[in-house]
């Protein structure tokens, strides 16, 4: 799975996610990516989110929307909301999770429970950043 979130010069946010799914999955299985609020979500007022990992876990946890809701209704920061969404229902929903999120000021947060997430960030007039390991 790959994804991107962006803030443009007009202050608009967007999120995009694209995937080939799980290796050896059943024909016709659809994961979290196209489930809005599951693997992909964006709202200018709060944040844009793109998820990766085991889709069934992300769908059942509605994780992209959880990041949005924890910021909007519980007042958590982007980083805190992202990390909480990675831990959410960890007892019932075991599996790889990765969350990329950006808030309306262009700040970014990466949350993942796998120790390895291919990721990158580039803000206006700053140097680009890419990373793989924790």
């Amino acid at each position, binding site marked *: 799975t790959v994804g991107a979130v962006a803030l*443009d010069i007009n202050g608009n946010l967007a999120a995009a996610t694209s995937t080939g799914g799980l290796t*050896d999955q059943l024909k016709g299985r659809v994961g979290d990516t196209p489930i809005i609020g599951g693997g*992909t979500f964006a709202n*200018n007022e709060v944040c844009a989110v793109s998820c990766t990992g085991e889709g069934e876990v992300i769908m059942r946890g509605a994780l992209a929307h959880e990041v949005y809701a924890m910021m909007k209704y519980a007042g958590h920061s982007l980083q805190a909301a992202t990390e909480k969404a990675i831990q959410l229902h960890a007892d019932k929903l075991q599996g790889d999770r990765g969350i990329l999120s950006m808030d309306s000021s262009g700040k970014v947060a990466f949350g993942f429970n796998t120790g390895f997430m291919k990721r990158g960030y580039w803000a206006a007039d700053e140097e680009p950043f890419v990373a793989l390991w924790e």
Partner: protein
Amino acid sequence: MKKFAIAIHGGAETTKPSELDNKKEEAYKDGLADALKAGYDVLEKGGSALDAVEAAVNSMERNPLFNAGRGASLTERGENEFDAAIMDGNTLRVGAVGAVRYVQHPISLAKVILQKCDYCLLVGTGAEEFALANNLSLKGPEYFVTPEKKEAWLDKQQNKVEKKRMPGSMTD
């Protein structure tokens, strides 16, 4: 407040440093840098966040290193099936596709659905017909299936066969 910004991911998986050689790590970093640049160039020219995230994801869909588009994982049948979604934080419009097989850029089909379709999510042949109607590029399986993925799939099938052959696992 940043003037503009873009962030990307190329997937999170349970991998150990010993499983990844330097050459592969560098290739991943180059792929991420290419995708970042594709999105940043759009933003720098005053383009929309929507166009920027599409450009960044397109770059990774073309890169066989990432599990999307060309070089994506194979289903139990040894075929590709793609899902994608894009959402506009300003209008809350959405475009999403599920289980499409021949669309070269699933995220671009999702964006056309966001822009031109009354529905949010199209799947399978309906989504593919919408791609045809909007002149998006469709490709045959030979474009998407890379030798590495085919080999990984064959290994997996071999393992499944061997598991079945194990004594006591057969039933008459």
